[in-house]
């Protein structure tokens, strides 16, 4: 029985390999995506329906995908890398995995601070990481900045997500870019002193803890707030836009780049341009209640309802450059 099965497997595998090779003649694109399937597949489908280009993809975390790209080198089948967080894109570009693209369309559609200064990656959706508070126990006038969450009045009232999540690493990296390491370390330590409980594994749990009265304020990405409120509109939670008189709200991107060894570079650039177009932007951002990166596209009404706010104008690539520093700083501050 075993022998037959082994034989069957070998045949199947070889078959799969060759059929993949045979299909190479059709127009296709290969994508490695750290953006999750249900948030990206609708766009692939829309593009395939429109242009007849087949898009093959795998999803994984950004780290393993990048190692895979490095290992595969010139033979990689991947044309595009799609990932969340500018830190991950910066790292891929830094490792020489992404090609510089000279595209007037992308230049026009993606504002300068949401793309690589050397044009190796481009933001496609913007997410804001902001303060969430309990409408039962906190008045918005009491809130002002991220840094002020370290003030004494929040002692035992703050909930945070783990420092192992890249969103917090980017937030702290941006603080380092703005304030320097010493000041940032002081603020992060003050946050840790104010924690009501050990950090949570995700943003939704932070908000649920605030809802349950375990703490009163927290820091979350807006789309998690949107999703949770959609499911449970009765939760006594609201968003607050911090640092409005200063640096602005920390924003980050979900973005993409064309790989250096892409087999279909022109098609890949075309696809990227389409993703930044008005047609695709709505799909891309609305699927996850994010903000479109293209300034000509208005956000989803549900998202727009949270109000306008001033964004941190620093180029998001700083998040990548300073990420390792931020991680070490949070370790030293005892932020788990």
């Amino acid at each position, binding site marked *: 029985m075993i022998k037959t099965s082994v034989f069957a497997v070998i045949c199947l*595998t070889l078959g*799969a390999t060759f059929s993949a090779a045979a299909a190479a003649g059709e127009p296709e694109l290969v994508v490695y995506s750290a953006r999750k399937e*249900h948030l990206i597949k609708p766009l692939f489908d829309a593009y395939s329906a429109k242009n007849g280009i087949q898009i093959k993809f795998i999803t994984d975390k950004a780290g393993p995908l990048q190692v895979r790209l490095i290992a595969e080198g010139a*033979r990689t089948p991947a044309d595009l890398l799609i990932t969340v967080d500018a830190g991950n894109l910066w790292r891929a570009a830094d490792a020489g995995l992404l090609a510089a693209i000279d595209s007037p369309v992308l230049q026009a559609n993606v504002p300068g601070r949401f793309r690589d200064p050397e044009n190796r990656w481009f933001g496609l959706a913007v997410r804001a990481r902001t303060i969430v508070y309990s409408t039962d126990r906190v008045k918005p006038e009491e809130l002002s900045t991220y840094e002020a969450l370290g003030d004494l009045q929040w002692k035992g009232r703050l909930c945070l997500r783990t420092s192992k999540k890249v969103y917090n690493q980017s937030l702290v990296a941006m603080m380092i870019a703005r304030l320097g390491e010493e000041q940032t370390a002081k603020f992060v330590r003050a946050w840790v002193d104010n924690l009501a409980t050990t950090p949570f*594994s995700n943003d939704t*749990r932070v908000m649920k803890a605030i809802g349950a009265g*375990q703490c009163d304020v927290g820091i979350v990405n807006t789309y998690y707030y949107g999703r949770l409120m959609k499911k449970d509109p009765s939760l006594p939670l609201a968003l607050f836009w911090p640092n409005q008189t200063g640096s602005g709200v920390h924003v980050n991107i979900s973005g993409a780049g064309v790989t250096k060894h892409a087999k279909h570079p022109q098609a890949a650039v075309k696809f990227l341009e389409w993703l930044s177009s008005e047609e695709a932007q709505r799909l891309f951002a609305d699927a996850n209640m994010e903000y479109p990166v293209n300034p000509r596209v208005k956000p989803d009404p549900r998202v727009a309802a949270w109000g306008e706010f001033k964004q941190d104008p620093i180029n998001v690539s700083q998040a990548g450059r300073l990420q390792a520093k931020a991680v*070490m700083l949070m370790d030293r501050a005892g932020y788990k």
Partner: protein
Amino acid sequence: MTQTAGQVAHSARASVGISTWLNVNVWHWRLATLAIAATVAAPIVVVCAAWLTPSGEIWRHLADTILLELIRNTVVLIVGVGAGVLVLGVGLAWLTAMYDFPGRRLFDWALMLPLAIPAYVLAFVFVGLLDVSGPVQTWLRHNVGAQPNWFPPVRSHGGVVTVLVLAFYPYVYLLARAAFLSQGHAMLETGRVFGLRPWSAFLRVAIPVARPAIAAGVALALMETLADFGAVSVFNYDTFTTAIYKAWFGLFNLDAAAQLASLLLLFVALALYGERRMRGNARYDVRGGPGRTKRYRLRGGRAAGATALAASVLLFAFVIPVAQLTLWAWSAMAQELDLRYLRFFANTVFLGSVAALITTFGALLLAYTYRLRPDRLTRAGVRFATLGYALPGSVLAVGIMLSFVWLDQRIAGVLAHWGLQAGLLLTGSLIAVILAYMVRFMAVAHGPVDSGFERIGPSLLQAARSLGCGTWEILWRVFIPILRTGALSAILLVFVEVMKEMPATLLLRPFGWDTLATRIFELTSEGEWERAALPAINLVLLGLIPVVMLVRRSGTQP
């Protein structure tokens, strides 16, 4: 065959191996084994090779900040989970194998069911239910009033240990139960003839004899614990594995991550070696079948206690999590369920069964060659080949991928000589992902297969020889019947493991080969726990099939 206490012969070690009684060319087998061992070992070597790149800065940083706490947490976890699975696994196995009490026939197999629930799923159900914002504490707040101070903190040492014990005790239960059943009662009766009370008979006869099985079960549970990242990260509980991922994803240093991972491996290798040394040269070949097993009937308070214990374990480890998953899955059904689930199902089953067959085949080969002549080289090969289980999945996956890419480059080089253009033939193919499972789960298959071989003692072969059996007849009439049980257990266990496996599947699956586990990943990594319940419950249901088969087979005598 008559049974006496002397069945368990603590005879001198059989260093010659069983090749004495078989007329086979040891070298052929040895080569095949070394080939398998090398395949399995290659990714581990790749991981260890990271030491060639210095990353002192990261080490200094970790040592200055979090390393001490991580090691402390890891030790707490190992001691807690080790003690927990030992007590729960052996205790329940003893109870169901030796006694009769209300519900025993149900618990016999039902206590195995938690094996079908991945630890990360159990963790997210547990935290979701019991944390401060969960339904249980919310209900208490509304009905008992105020924040209940007495409620133990869920995201704590105790919480993590509890979840991992509930997730991993079935390994010990499965193996210990089989061992107790195969001992039969005769030996215990002999012990009692010599004046041992039931409790001391348990401690002095049953446990020592079942020790290899128990040790194998605990080793599996602890290797899972060390490699676990999914469950502990739900608790935001930092372990040594956390440092590995931090070095990689946070500090961008894969080499430092691999160095940390290889330290973990070294620790596991030493622990396994230590256990074997302590066991010494004792042999554990129990001859004869389970024979006459008549269970002691418990009555009154004892019977009620036994039922209550088994029922509460089953309740917390299986019934409640499955009920909660079902509830969540139901609410997410309209949004999440579609035809793709057929593909997820088919892919999961295909990968699981193919990998299970191949891995078990490899494990049989390894164990057989080792028995033929247990020399140092073969032994080292076998030991090395079963280490992969303790490596965190992502790290091992990278090791495997790097090995395949290397091989692909060589193949492409050869093809280029003939003027052929080749991409990556192996990387991203089914072969790669299936070999990855083999590397990862060789230890799982090796356990049951090896304990099958433990039962083929030299005297059995001697007897077969003296009855005039030739080599092939011995293989056919002695080995196959005795090994069938172990091999089937191995196949089923590996199937369940492959089904639950996540990081290697993610990194190495071919395009379009999404499984139930990768679907869970897609949803949980976006915090969509309730939608993730749908693939999770599917995974659990699918896992029940092999688990139930496993139990049916592992001896359900009346």
